[in-house]
């Protein structure tokens, strides 16, 4: 079942369509939420809330519009509400809490040691992830939507509820800051 067909079926209350969409989007939504809130437990809670909200509001969704943008907007709104409740004054502040070694990537990459190049790639990815974690929320978000979720700029503008020009400028500033951070913290790093 394709995305569009599943959305139509879900609007009719079909639980199989819900399972199809969840299977299709589960990794992307979870990754995006984790990128925003950084704590796996919070991301899991928000993951649940997102799909419950989808089930609640799917009948209000206009099928002529972009489902990805609608879905990510729901996840984003829930995540921002959560962050406001948790840290009302620090939504856009860089955060460096916790050990640098305890990152999402390190949790994901636990397992058998691989070949040397794989380890090197993991190390670079870890550095990148650590730098990404330290970026302000709005920068983390736009980088995640563009590079991880591979959303079009127009879709990102819908999710952020911001003009295209804002998306571009935020994307540019976030990349510049990310690079500065990487070069500052890992001056000898050679990226593949």
């Amino acid at each position, binding site marked *: 079942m394709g995305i569009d067909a599943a959305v139509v079926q879900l609007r009719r209350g079909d639980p199989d369509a819900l399972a199809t969409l*969840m299977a299709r989007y589960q990794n992307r939504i979870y*990754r995006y939420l984790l990128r925003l809130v950084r704590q796996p437990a919070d991301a899991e809670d928000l993951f649940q809330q997102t799909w419950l909200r989808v089930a609640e509001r799917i009948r209000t969704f206009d099928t002529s519009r972009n489902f990805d943008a609608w879905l990510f907007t729901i996840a984003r709104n829930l995540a921002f509400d959560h962050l406001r409740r948790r840290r009302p004054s620090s939504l856009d502040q860089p955060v460096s809490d916790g050990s640098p070694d305890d990152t*999402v990537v390190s949790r994901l990459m636990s397992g058998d040691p691989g070949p040397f190049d794989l380890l090197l790639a993991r190390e670079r990815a870890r550095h990148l992830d650590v730098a*990404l974690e330290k970026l302000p929320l709005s920068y983390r978000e736009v980088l995640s939507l563009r*590079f991880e979720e*591979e959303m079009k700029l127009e879709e990102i503008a819908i999710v952020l509820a911001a003009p295209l020009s804002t*998306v*571009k400028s935020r994307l540019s500033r976030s990349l510049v800051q990310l690079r500065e951070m990487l070069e500052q913290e890992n001056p000898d790093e050679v990226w*593949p």
Partner: protein
Amino acid sequence: MTRSGEHAEIRDQLALYVAGALEADTEASIAQHVATCPSCAAELERWQMIGSGLRRLPTPQPSPALFERTRAMAAAQLAAHAEQRQNRIVLVLLIIFSWAVTIAGWPVFRFATGGLLSLLDIRFREAWIQFAIFSAITWLAGGSAAVLLSVRRQHERRLA
């Protein structure tokens, strides 16, 4: 524009270039420039490394238990909403039915109790009492049907 000014302008746009956020003609002019400029090409390579690094970050996955729990909860919510909608439809239909019976049944009632001429006999003093009784009976019947329906559904849900 001087050559150094051109370099600066190109380099300012390289971040957006690797993000695929530039217009096609701007991209083309940057590609043309870096093809003949080793220093800008090296700078572009650094940006591309960051871009590809971001694209290759591992994808965290929710646990199967979280997926299944969420799916079950969302499916239950879908079913609850569907039932609410159905109940609303049934209620609206019952109201329409009650009004239809009330309006259409009144002439029949008059005809049955007083014959054909009674339809033309407008004696409101007696008529409104009869009408009120008749309406109350029909509305009570509709209400009872709604309650019975609701009880039956709750029973069915408990059995499911």
